[in-house]
């Protein structure tokens, strides 16, 4: 009887359940414009299939801008040829507080850390809002291009893509980690000032 009671208590302790985030969370975003120099090598994957499909045709060399070396592994599997950095930013937020990371004048990323699960993944909810000018309207309106909920593991970024951007598509590489303040002055929470792009690709 006592053993059964102890087993029940132990099973309750081991039961699945989210844990609150004790430390602030740092959200890192890198926005990239991806373009193709030729036709798509693979058809759009069907719902539920892994995106990376081995191509059967001749390989085209992929080009990455110099400041994308850090996230290059997260982009290589995508079916694009040229990757150009659009913007990057970091923000620190407590659980339940939303942070805003501007991508460009049309797109903005919003992220809200929720909690941390037992596997060490940080659950977030986020959305990508875009400004669009609909026919018949004089002013652009903001709409939710994408809203999502995800549990992001350490060193396992989340890619958000498919948004129109000039001649290519916008891809946002998102990673979330517990914020550990480095010794010295705290880093700026606002995203870096965007650099003018050299590529003529534009809308």
């Amino acid at each position, binding site marked *: 009887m*006592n*053993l059964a009671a*102890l*087993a029940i208590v*132990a*099973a309750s*302790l*081991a039961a699945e359940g989210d844990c609150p985030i004790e430390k602030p969370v740092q959200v890192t975003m890198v926005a990239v*414009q991806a373009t193709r120099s030729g036709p798509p090598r693979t058809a*759009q*994957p069907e*719902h*539920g*299939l*892994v*995106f*990376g499909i081995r191509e059967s045709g001749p390989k085209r060399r992929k080009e990455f801008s110099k400041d994308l070396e850090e996230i290059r*592994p*997260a982009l290589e*599997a995508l079916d694009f040829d040229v990757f*150009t950095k*659009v*913007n990057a930013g970091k923000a620190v937020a407590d659980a339940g507080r939303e942070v805003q990371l501007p991508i*460009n*004048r049309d797109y903005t990323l919003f992220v809200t850390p929720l909690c941390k*699960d*037992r*596997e*060490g*993944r940080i659950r977030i909810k986020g959305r990508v809002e875009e*400004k*669009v*000018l*609909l*026919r018949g309207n004089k002013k*652009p309106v903001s*709409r*939710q291009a*994408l*809203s*999502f*909920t*995800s*549990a992001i593991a*350490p060193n*396992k*970024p*989340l*890619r*958000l*893509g*498919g*948004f*129109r*951007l000039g001649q290519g598509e916008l891809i946002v590489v998102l990673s979330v980690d517990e914020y550990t303040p480095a010794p010295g002055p705290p880093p700026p929470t606002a995203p870096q000032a965007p*650099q*003018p*792009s050299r590529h003529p690709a*534009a*809308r």
Partner: protein
Amino acid sequence: MNNEQLERRLECWFDGELGSDAEAVQAALSQSECQAYLAWLRELREHTRAVAARPAINDAQFPAFMAGIRNKLEAPPRRHAQLWALASLTAAALIVAVSLFLMFNGAGGNGTATVVEAVETQIDGATVNAYSSDDGSATVWVTEPDEEDAWVSDTQGEIW
């Protein structure tokens, strides 16, 4: 003389208790029934003799006899109860250890992957798909329709 009386007289004769009537019994012995009854008496006597003698305790042995009984009664209990207690304690400790392992093992685990739990879009006609990669990362892809109901950006696609 009826059969019952004859049997009684045969038994007395078999036990050597007839005395002067033995001659009368001798005459009856020629009968087959009497022979059969005598054979049965002989078999009964043989089986009775085969019973082992019961050990008896005399007065001098009685104190030692009681001491032996007392020793058995006061003997320490068998160790089976301790064995069950030890097994229960071991099982409880194992359950606690496994529970603690499951509770704390997930923090910073290397085998976890990023997962997408929910996706949604407000773009008319667009579809959203989520994929998992072998390296543990995840991708959410919005596929917009080819012809959208008016999309003109006032920035002319400028990239910062």
